[in-house]
């Protein structure tokens, strides 16, 4: 299926007709495809290219930018727009923001898409499908373009992992603009008052948990609605326990990858956390669980660094939001210091976008020093551009910086859910079942292995691999 440039609609119609297959009705139907309207391509009349305008943005053109208005808000994007307009005053930027990326953008992808889409949130367009269908543009020329306001190329100005995270099938497709650090959050003020030290391993957590419970606080709370929340934590534990290669094998659908040494014990730690009733009773979604944590009903919650911005309106006075690294299992860990961090909040440029040059130029502005500093200041999250948080004073941001400073040589990154929609769904479901206590760690491993084997055998699914 998928990427097959030599079989276009015309060829298809000719073959269908030649084969005499349902000739009239089939042709009539196929020719009616929603995607059959050819889109106008402004790239033909591109403007002059220069060091200051590496993609040849045309004067007086317009660029349509769609921002995901989720945990990070959209105020930062307006700052990027100001940065962009300062250099290209004649180019009109039509910026809109939404939470329903797929609902609003997917129907336009085959005909008249927006120029630049921030593909993020619960309602995002499936990346592997976008790439397999050739619906988004490779952006390798953005990496080699000169940086907006610093020396060297755009690639030089990015934090490690950003290029790798956005690369699929050897090409750079997704520009992640936020640098997110995941881990276990706690209230620094509460822990100081009680004299508790945030644990580094599950064993330390299991020792501390009874003391937390004695104060009438649940040791842990998680998002029971979105399976990808607990899944981050499970995969981080697996990486720390079983090591980097184990997760790479899992992503590459290698035989018996889920049965590798260290995977099962990692999941068993989570099974114990549930069995010992250390989780706040009830089933809450992400913001409800975060609020329960802010209200002091639970001691730990795991989520990324967008947390502070997302909950900004309801943080109680005196609450000290601090981040600590995910827990490992202890001495047996193969990669105890690796941190779950990476570039997130990805921008894509549709292949049929009418003004791709301006879209890329806009991305260059987003990744600029000026733009990324505003991003860190407004969102209390790091941008994927180096040095964005240098001038921001904030406990959440500085503990995140600290976690990063103590990080091992590799960043934990999992590609499974970007590679295969089936495994995305299955791993989310199973994570929730494990956290609900309906599944043992051993059953989790068996079911994930079975699902991975099924995808590996399914010839209709395009396979992807990673080496790093």
């Amino acid at each position: 299926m998928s990427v097959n440039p030599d079989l276009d609609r015309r060829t298809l119609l000719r073959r269908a007709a030649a084969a005499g297959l349902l000739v009239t009705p089939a042709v009539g139907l196929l020719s009616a495809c929603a995607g059959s309207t050819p889109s106008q391509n402004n790239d033909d009349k591109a403007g002059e290219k220069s060091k200051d305008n590496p993609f040849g943005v045309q004067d007086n053109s317009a660029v349509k930018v769609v921002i995901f208005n989720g945990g990070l808000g959209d105020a930062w994007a307006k700052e990027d727009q100001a940065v962009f307009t300062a250099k290209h005053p004649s180019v009109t930027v039509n910026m809109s923001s939404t939470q329903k990326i797929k609902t609003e953008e997917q129907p336009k992808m085959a005909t008249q898409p927006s120029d630049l889409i921030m593909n993020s949130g619960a309602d995002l367009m499936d990346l592997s499908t976008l790439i397999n269908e050739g619906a988004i543009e490779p952006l390798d020329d953005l990496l080699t373009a000169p940086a907006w306001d610093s020396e060297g190329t755009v690639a030089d100005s990015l934090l490690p992992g950003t290029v790798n995270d956005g690369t699929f099938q050897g090409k750079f497709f997704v520009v992640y603009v936020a640098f997110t650090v995941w881990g276990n959050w706690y209230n620094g003020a509460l822990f100081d008052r009680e004299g508790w030290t945030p644990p580094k391993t599950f064993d330390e957590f299991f020792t501390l948990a009874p003391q937390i419970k004695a104060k009438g606080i649940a040791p842990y709370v998680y998002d029971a609605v979105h399976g990808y929340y607990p899944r981050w934590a499970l995969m981080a534990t697996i990486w720390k326990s079983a090591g980097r290669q184990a997760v790479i094998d899992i992503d590459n659908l290698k035989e018996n990858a889920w049965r590798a040494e260290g995977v099962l014990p990692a999941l068993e730690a989570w099974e114990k956390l549930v069995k010992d009733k250390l989780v706040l009773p009830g089933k809450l979604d992400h913001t409800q669980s975060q609020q329960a944590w802010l209200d002091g009903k639970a001691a730990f919650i795991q989520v990324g660094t967008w947390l502070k911005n997302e909950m900004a309106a309801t943080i109680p006075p005196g609450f000290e939001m601090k981040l600590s690294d995910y827990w490992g299992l202890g001495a047996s860990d193969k990669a105890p210091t690796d941190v779950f961090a990476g570039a997130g909040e990805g921008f894509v440029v549709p292949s049929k976008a009418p003004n791709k040059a301006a879209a890329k130029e806009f991305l260059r502005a987003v990744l600029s020093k000026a733009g990324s500093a505003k991003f860190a200041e407004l969102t209390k999250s790091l941008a994927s551009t180096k040095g964005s948080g240098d001038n921001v004073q904030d406990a959440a941001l500085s503990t995140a910086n600290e976690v990063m400073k103590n990080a091992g040589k590799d960043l934990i990154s999992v590609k499974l859910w970007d590679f295969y929609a089936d495994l995305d769904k299955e791993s989310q479901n199973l994570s929730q079942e494990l956290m609900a206590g309906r599944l043992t760690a051993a059953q989790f491993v068996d079911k994930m292995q079975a699902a991975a084997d099924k995808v590996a055998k399914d010839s209709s699914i395009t396979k992807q691999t990673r080496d790093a």
Partner: protein
Amino acid sequence: MRHGVARFVTGFLALPLGLYLFYVVWPFLQAAGYSLTDWGGYSDRQQFVGLENYIRLFSDELIRKAFWHNVFFLVTVPLFTIALALFLAFLLNVGGREDRAGVRGVFGSGLYKVIFFFPQVLSLVVIAVMWQQIYRADGQGLINGVLMKIGLINSDDPITFMYDPEPFLGVPAVLWWLLLIAVWSGAGFYMVLFSAAMQSIPKDIFEAAILDGASRFHTFFRITLPLLRDTVSVAWVYLGFIALDMFALVYIMTPSQGGPNHASEIFASVINFNAFQKGQFGYACAIAVALAIFTILLAALQLRITRRERIEY
């Protein structure tokens, strides 16, 4: 003259018929066309794959699961909605005290009618969001909060509603909770429909029965129900369509849209997953076409079974 009438009628019908053909029939045909391709939904590239999608459909475990869940709704939604609506309509129209003024409904029936009909004026999405708060699975949920206050359930063990896949009578609990919402939101409309039908039954039939000493129970089953047969059978078909849909409730209310772990998966949620998450539009169209054929057959069957001589008053 006749020619003029035809032109007059055509003039009025052309526009709505044109709109209907373009916006309803044409997309149906397009979906049928896509179901024979491997279109992914994001590009204008597609290959003709014949009936491959339909063959795949029969070996898809998830579809089998979704099918049985839809069958559950297909049986229960019409059954409970019609039973409740008939009961309410009977009480509101002929259930009250009999006196010299003849047969009438229970006291305050006008007010009840408005109250029961109210869910019908709310959008399904609003209903779903409202019930999310009622079903919220901790002490802040309406039901859990009340039950905890009066001590019926332990605060460490709230009812989990949408997160509960444990079977009750062989069907996941989450489906029963969804059924409750569907019946609650649908009963009011059919109550009004049945009320209207009941009012068209001449009152003297009821009065004659009462004079002969028939109880309310007998009046209902011997007179009301047989005379409402047509209306009930239409309601049954409509509710069958609703039961085969149920998408809004499942999509908004259940974890990972069909969860927990596929416990509330229905046709529409499988279509949604394949089309919009997995990027297999062709396959999703094939499921949709299969569902459409199933629905049409079902409606035809239902109308056929319930067809019968009409009684003219």
